């Protein structure tokens, strides 16, 4: 009798396996992605702040005020500009370099494998660690870079303390840190190109450069679009480097969108305004995604 009811329960559960297996993830996504996203959109139209939490009566709907304030405010414009500047510096450099490195390390020889690992090392070092290390390297007095410049009889540079150079420094460091990741993606894509294609091309008399131009590059088209996309989105999220190295300075030259979001939310505690930045940031990412999807052939779209 007991065995029978146990059986029935088993069967009942089995018939609902699809629902039961997917439910934990779906509920978590609902609670921690969909719900907060809705909250962010909602909060961006209110004056929510630490004060409205203390005195709930003061919470009010403010319409587009937060957005208007942001767009009219030079700070936001500067943060947006800084972010775009960083993206414009990093994306072409990082993708181009990653492709070149991938070509360099594609192969089974010992030295190529050694290089592959060393290019990947910065990727598996956390950004916080690298931020600290590069601060040391950029140190204007005894930093390695200025020591080197002096040794070459060149004038030492202010690096991080100059508004003109600070963002360039962060970009250089970021490219160096992340290039191994994109290189690996290119490498994986290159290794999935059937060798028979190259053999056929060689029989047709194509040289190395021809093989690269006529086979590798076209075969990597979708991978490249994808790599450009993720590099762009990663670059938009720039936060740790300016937060730890420059604190947005000097003179706001490294203040980025996410840094501003963080400051508005956790220093000024103006949640409504910060939520508006969140929403605008999302729209930005959405636009980039949209462009990427238009470029990708339909069957490879996410």
């Amino acid at each position, binding site marked *: 009798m007991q065995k029978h009811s146990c059986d029935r329960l088993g069967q009942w559960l089995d018939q609902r396996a699809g629902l039961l297996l997917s439910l934990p993830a779906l509920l978590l*996504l609902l609670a921690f992605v969909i719900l907060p996203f809705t909250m962010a959109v909602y909060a961006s139209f209110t004056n929510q702040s630490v004060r409205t939490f203390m005195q709930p009566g003061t919470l009010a709907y403010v319409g587009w005020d937060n957005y208007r304030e942001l767009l009219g405010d030079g700070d936001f414009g500067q943060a947006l500009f800084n972010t775009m500047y960083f993206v414009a510096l990093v994306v072409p450099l990082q993708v181009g370099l990653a492709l070149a490195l991938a070509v360099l390390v594609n192969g089974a020889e010992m030295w190529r494998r050694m290089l592959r690992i060393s290019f990947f090392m910065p990727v598996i070092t956390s950004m916080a660690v690298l931020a600290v290390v590069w601060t040391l390297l950029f140190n204007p007095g005894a930093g390695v870079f200025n020591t080197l410049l002096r040794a070459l009889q060149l004038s030492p540079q202010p690096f991080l303390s100059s508004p003109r150079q600070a963002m360039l420094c962060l970009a250089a460091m970021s490219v160096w840190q992340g290039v191994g990741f994109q290189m690996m993606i290119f490498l994986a894509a290159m290794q999935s190109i059937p060798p028979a294609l190259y053999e056929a091309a060689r029989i047709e008399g194509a040289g190395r450069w021809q093989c690269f131009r006529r086979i590798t590059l076209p075969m990597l088209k979708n991978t490249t679009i994808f790599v450009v996309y993720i590099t762009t989105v990663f670059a938009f999220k720039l936060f740790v480097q300016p937060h730890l190295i420059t604190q947005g300075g000097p003179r706001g030259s490294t203040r980025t969108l996410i840094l501003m979001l963080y400051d508005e939310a956790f220093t000024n505690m103006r949640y409504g305004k910060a939520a508006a930045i969140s929403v605008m940031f999302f729209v930005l990412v959405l636009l980039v995604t949209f462009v990427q999807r238009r470029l990708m052939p339909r069957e490879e779209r996410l």
Partner: protein
Amino acid sequence: MNSRLRQIAACVLALLGGLVFLFPLLWMLRSSLLPHDQVLRALTAWRQLLPWPPRWENYAEVFRRVAFARTLLVSLGFTGVIVVVGMVINAACAYAFARLRLPGGDLLFAVVAALIIIPFEALALPLFIMLGVHGGLMNSLPGLFLPYLAKAFNIFLIRQYFLSLPAELEEAARVEGASWFRIFFQVALPLAKPVLAACAVLDFMLHWSEYLWPLIMTNRPDFETIQLGLGHFYTLPPIQWGGIMAYSVMATLPMMLVFAFFQRYLVLSMATAGLKQ
């Protein structure tokens, strides 16, 4: 003979190139073995490049000055729960989408796939209000890992992988009388090992280095992740560069270990991340 020479030359060149590329990391290692006052001292001679004799004292000092072990535990707990528990949750959901009957499954999956593009940064503030302000989860492990357990991207990847596998094995188990739960755990999960490992390595890398969310969700120095701990130690007077570099080296080691063991899957994870088919 000639080609052998060429190979050796290539190796030496590559070694040099690699050293130049890795220079910042090597500098970190060197500085962690120097006495504090020498880290920022200008170089005057070549032999100053090597930290000789090495000063291990910096490492001991980190443990003396801050609760490094506890920080390490918090980081490991945070990353570990996401990688292990999250993986099972996501794989189960992916399996249901790939193979089982779900009411409204296609629509549901389209919604999940659409969630991939929402960047975490846009959710951080409301999540903080939910979990930190209302949920009272500041300075706690659940507060750190809850938002990351379910990941639309992983569900997407793992589902693709299940779809690419032939269903024969699972059907054989079905005919033998196994329940879907048993099939998922005993047949499907082991088959998905490559993609699970790939997701696990990527997630480990991502969350070990995670900075923003722990920064938001913790405000006590006795409960912080390694990355935050480094940020604090870096500004903790008196500033001692040797100790800071030692901290940095120790913060990096776990990732290096994971990399050493799972290198094979990492390349695969790159392939999956890149192809996303």
